[in-house]
């Protein structure tokens, strides 16, 4: 059993909090990059970094203090995200846990489950993965086929998950599995926490177009899962999954800062190359779109702070931002050619990752359907 350290809640004064965060990051963000998180050493270094954040009280900014969080509000979370990205701090390997797995457990987990799992999540003692997508259930999530059979005192799980972020290093998976009849669509699904280090679990890292193995395929062969690892009501996992997705879709105030850094880096390259008269207008267009992205994010954080529920806005953000980021990167390629895409170039990963932006977390086509269904009220297709 993890011991939970009760923390002092975050100071309520937001500007004071920003000053604290900025000062701490200035003194603690490693100079130069940590080693590649795609390697064992690199992942370990990122895990150590997560512990430092946790120990300094900068993990789970808006989580309740009883689970090791900082008890802040949406704006504290947003301020931290802005400062973190401005400081160019390392990639967060606890990102899925921080943004949506933990908040879902806080909402649906039993008191015992929350005590058991949450602090280890924030400290990166255990790396948590999301197990929703399957080879035959990608855009069509209700087609999940991984089977969890009840065996008197436990579930027995068979099936396969895919696109599992950090799967290679994962300790726990928040899994959507079918406990009801096959083909039951949204009915008869349940959320189970599976120990990825246990018997019957096999992880196969998947190498992506950029060469990194950021995600994996995960196979379950008669994996025993204790009854106490069921999160939320049995057979009603769809509602839990939808709540999880709504957390995943909450505002990310770090995103416009990242886009700004991307654009600034490109403009820096252009200035250094002596300018490029033909691109002035393109740059102005990108600048205007970035400004709209910042304004939209600010408005969303305000709405969340005022207690408005998360709606389908994240689909708008995905559609708008994925295209903006891809266009910034693409302009760099048009200006500087294929040399920029060499494997060792800093733009290499950014180029390929930006191309994935219209696919991961729900394809652009699915996002458009979400907008059409839930906001525009168009007839279903």
């Amino acid at each position, binding site marked *: 059993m993890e011991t939970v350290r009760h923390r002092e809640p975050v100071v309520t004064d*937001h500007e004071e909090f920003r000053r604290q965060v900025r000062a701490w990051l200035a003194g603690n963000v490693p100079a130069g990059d940590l080693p590649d998180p795609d390697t064992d050493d690199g992942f370990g270094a990122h895990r150590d970094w997560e512990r430092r954040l946790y120990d300094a009280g900068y993990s789970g900014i808006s989580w309740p203090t009883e689970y090791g969080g900082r008890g802040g509000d949406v704006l504290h979370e947003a301020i931290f995200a802005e400062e973190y990205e401005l400081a160019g701090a390392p990639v967060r390997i606890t990102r899925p846990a921080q943004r949506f797995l933990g908040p879902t457990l806080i909402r649906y987990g039993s008191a015992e489950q929350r005590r058991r799992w949450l602090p280890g999540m924030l400290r990166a003692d255990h790396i948590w993965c999301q197990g929703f997508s399957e080879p035959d259930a990608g855009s069509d999530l209700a087609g999940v086929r991984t089977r969890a059979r009840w065996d008197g005192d436990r579930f027995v799980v068979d099936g396969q998950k895919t696109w599992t972020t950090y799967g290679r290093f994962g300790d726990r998976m928040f899994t959507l599995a079918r406990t009801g009849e096959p083909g039951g669509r949204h009915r008869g699904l349940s959320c189970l926490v599976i120990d990825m280090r246990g018997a019957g679990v096999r992880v196969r890292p998947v190498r992506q177009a950029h060469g990194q193995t950021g995600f994996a395929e995960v196979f379950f062969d008669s994996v025993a899962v204790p009854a106490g690892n069921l999160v939320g009501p049995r057979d009603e996992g769809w509602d839990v999954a939808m709540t999880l997705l709504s957390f995943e879709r909450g505002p990310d105030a770090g995103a416009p800062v990242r886009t700004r850094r*991307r654009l600034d*880096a490109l*403009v820096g390259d252009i200035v250094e190359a002596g300018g490029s008269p033909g691109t002035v207008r393109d740059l*102005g267009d990108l600048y*205007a779109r970035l400004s709209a992205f910042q304004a*939209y994010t600010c408005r969303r954080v305000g709405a969340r702070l005022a207690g408005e529920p998360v709606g389908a806005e994240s689909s708008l953000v995905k559609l708008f931002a994925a295209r903006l980021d891809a266009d910034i990167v693409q302009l760099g390629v048009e200006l500087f050619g294929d040399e920029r895409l060499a494997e060792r170039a800093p733009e290499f990963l950014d180029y390929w*990752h930006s191309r994935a932006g219209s696919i991961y977390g729900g394809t652009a086509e699915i996002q458009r359907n979400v907008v059409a269904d839930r*906001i525009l009220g168009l007839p279903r297709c």
Partner: protein
Amino acid sequence: MLTAEQVRLRAPSAEQRELAASAAGMFFRPDRDERVDAGPEGDFDRGRWTELAGTGLLGAAVPEGAGGLGLSVPDLVVLTEQAGRALLPGPVVETSWIAAPALAALGQEWAPALAATLHGDRVAAAVDATLRGPDLDVASYVVVPADGSDLLCAADRLGATLRVSTQDRLERSFRIARGPDGGGSAAQPLPLTDGLRVLDRGRLGAAAYLVGVAGGLLEQSISYARLREQFGRPIGAFQAVRHRLADSYVELEFARSAVWGAACDVAEGDPAAPVAITCASVAARRAFAEADRHCLQTHGGIGFTWEHPLHVWLKRGATFAARYGLRRDLETELGERLLARTGQQPRGRPPRPHI
């Protein structure tokens, strides 16, 4: 950087939502077709203008003590977007954003002119940098952007010399014409209003109006896509159609936020507000361009007929997309600013992706 005050200010308040709803109620006249407000020869509809004056819109940004509503710039954005959505005719942006606040700023001497303008008895308009503006032939006062100070011209004499003909403009119901350059004898230099030059005010107001036009276009297209059936079902059920409308909505919402954010910058006295206004103007033009393309396509042949109102929205949008700066010029301005800003900073690197 997000601050608590900013974030709170930037979530539209319940009052502002109410303001939008009540403005929509006042501006939309189901018994009236804004398409026919100008006759074929393009006469100014004085009755309709007096009606609009009665809504308080023209003096929305004028202090209460001077006979206006004393609303903030974000509030005025809310009203102006509704004006665009309802395709209100006449110099609504020019009067409410530029001329009426200018007359108010000139003090007691101009109080009678302001009162007559707010009642709709006299028309006050403005031109942009191309010296074009709406309803200049009937305007008593025209604000002209100029080097140094912007100018207010008492322009009673214009009516005799200017002819506003349908031949010179994109649409019948918006009477745009080329006006004076401010070199006339009765030119009065103007102070800044809310720290802004006339062109910036017009830019922001026109962007809000354009967002309203794009929103109106999209609403009509959604209704049409729900009703119109082909192959045995509403066309809005086909992804080819729904994705067009979703894309239009995305651009619209981001443009709306950009305009709103720029208005909040003005209200906060941010010295960089003119840059935010230029960004918002580009965003509004992008949103309209997207709606323009997809909404006409969604309507198919019927949208191309004179009988269907769609073409008036398309034309009004095109008119406003060309007011207070063309998209390519605004983008160039922003691009140059970005290059100048970055030239003074150390070179950065793109962020490492979350993988």
